[in-house]
């Protein structure tokens, strides 16, 4: 947070490839990994071999990596206490690693690396090996500061997923959500995608609703009653500076910036009737997209910015619809259930996740954008407000399955579901940023 911006640049620019590469095509494991939860690939994650600062814990990087790999549902991480090799004395390259000492543990893959500390600066060289073939699958060198170590681990986790599945992982990103963990009102919090580095962004002591990341991850739009009425604001990230976006009479609710950042979509009100409107970035109305006596609410941009999914009760009950950004070609997408809301578009634009009432509570469903191929993702408790990870592999949503409302992560098929937030209060209304860089 504090020096985040500078460090981010330093880290990104210096993520050099010097003799280190990630060869997705070479990954034999790829054919065995179909999707999260289906096959859990056994991997050992060694601590980094530290030089230059004995006080720095080489485990920190490994701890983050282990958490990410477990959250991914693609891997079974072999417990560190069973490792035969010592991180500080063992070799870290193809020709110096004792692969037999890893294969005997059942590891099909091994992660190791080095951490060189010079003052505040660190260089991490991280590698992924195929244990059976005794060959390196992926290697990366990162330069940053000590503070960047968790983020470097997240980035390498994303590389590992890219290597074994062909698609980058989602971990170098952030999640914003509302929580009552510190008091009566829903305040805005931000954490890294794996649930760590939780920070509180607002101290507003009023109603806050429907946060949504801007397309560059440098702001969050949200509706707040901080000036008495439900108006739309933008909150800078990480600074937390408020600026007013829209304060039309009545509702200025939810939505957010278009993928190109040139327009805002939100719910506005005309004499009690909610409609979808498109605003200029300064908050002035560009045009009204819907014009219908029914409730129209919860607009969500398609990733190409050409279409908008929304919820309307024009058929007599709330259902999901899709339309062009000009309001034409309105088509109903949800068919199941009597109450379907909260649409979220997948990053590839092909599917829409939404919440639909089922036996008293809400469940998360995914449907193709043309309304075909619907499938149910959740079954336990009540599950609301689904959003997609930037890689489109996972859904994040609030769930009451273990009592309090917390955020849960699931692969799209619904096989691997894990709790991401804990603690007091309720955690609701998540928004998942795109990748940080």
């Amino acid at each position, binding site marked *: 947070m504090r020096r985040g911006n500078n460090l981010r640049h330093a880290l990104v620019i210096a993520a050099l490839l010097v003799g280190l590469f990630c060869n997705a095509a070479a990954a034999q494991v790829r054919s065995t990994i179909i999707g999260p939860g289906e096959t859990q690939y056994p991997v050992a994650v060694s601590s980094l071999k530290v030089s230059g600062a004995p006080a720095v814990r080489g485990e920190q990087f490994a701890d983050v990596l282990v958490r990410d790999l477990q959250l991914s549902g693609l891997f079974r991480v072999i417990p560190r206490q069973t490792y035969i090799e010592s991180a500080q004395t063992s070799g870290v390259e193809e020709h110096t690693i004792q692969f037999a000492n890893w294969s005997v543990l059942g590891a099909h893959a091994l992660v190791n690396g080095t951490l060189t500390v010079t003052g505040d600066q660190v260089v991490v060289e991280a590698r992924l090996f195929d244990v059976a073939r005794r060959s390196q699958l992926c290697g990366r060198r990162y330069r940053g500061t000590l503070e960047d170590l968790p983020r470097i681990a997240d980035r390498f986790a994303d590389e590992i997923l890219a290597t074994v599945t062909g698609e980058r992982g989602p971990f170098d990103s952030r999640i914003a959500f509302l929580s009552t963990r510190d008091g*009566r009102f829903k305040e805005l919090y931000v954490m890294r995608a794996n649930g760590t580095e939780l920070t509180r962004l607002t101290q507003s002591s009023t109603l806050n609703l429907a946060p949504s990341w801007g397309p560059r991850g440098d702001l969050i739009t949200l509706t707040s009653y901080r*000036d008495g009425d*439900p108006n739309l604001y933008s909150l800078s990230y990480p600074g937390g500076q408020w600026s007013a976006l829209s304060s039309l009479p*009545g509702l200025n*609710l939810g939505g957010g910036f278009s993928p190109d950042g040139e327009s805002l979509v939100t719910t506005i009100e005309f004499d009690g009737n909610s409609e979808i409107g498109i605003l200029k970035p300064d908050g002035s109305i560009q045009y009204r997209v819907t014009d219908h006596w029914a409730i129209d609410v*919860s607009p969500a941009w398609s990733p190409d910015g050409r279409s908008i999914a929304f919820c309307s009760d024009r058929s007599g009950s*709330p259902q999901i619809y899709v339309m062009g950004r000009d309001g034409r070609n309105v088509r109903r997408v949800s068919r199941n259930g009597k109450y379907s809301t909260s649409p979220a578009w997948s990053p590839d634009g092909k599917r829409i996740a939404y919440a639909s*009432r089922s036996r008293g509570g809400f469940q998360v469903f995914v449907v193709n954008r043309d309304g075909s191929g619907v499938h149910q993702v959740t079954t336990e408790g009540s599950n609301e407000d689904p959003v997609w990870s930037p890689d489109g592999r996972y859904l994040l949503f609030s769930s009451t399955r273990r009592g309090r409302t917390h955020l849960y992560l699931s692969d799209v098929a619904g096989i691997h579901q894990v709790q991401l937030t804990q603690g007091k209060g309720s955690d609701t209304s998540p928004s998942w940023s795109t990748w940080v860089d």
Partner: protein
Amino acid sequence: MVMRWVGGCVSISLACVLLIGCGASDKDALDDGTGLDEQQLGGRGSLAEQQAGTLGLPGSQGPLADIYFGYDSEELGSHARTTLQRNREWLESHPDARVEIEGHCDDRGTIEYNLALGARRAAAARNYLIALGVSPSRITTISYGEELPVCRDFTPECRQRNRRGHFVVFEK
């Protein structure tokens, strides 16, 4: 509790002072007479009550009675219409009073949909009062969706109490 409402009618700022000052004595709150305004204290009506921790406590009703709605509906039933007629009479005899109608919902919908539904409920009540002859300029609306329940049980009775139109009176 009567004092709280009377204060609420004196002026907007006092309404908030008294609502916020519920933990302290009313006298203390009144002594702090300068520089307070509605916005600083972050709200009015149900939101101010929520901020003061008094929402849902007995006695929070003003001179105008709440009206209640069916599930996922903004339709005014006969009971609601009768209440609105009584509320119109009160407004007629208090020509300086303004009213803000709050639309509220139970917990069963989703947050954004319920905000839209609350807006429809508030507008339905407002339009009915206008049809009964109340000047539109005296009535504003605000939706709180399911955000400010007066009770938190998952019973039909509690949910009915939350599906309400609440009237907050401001007098000059």
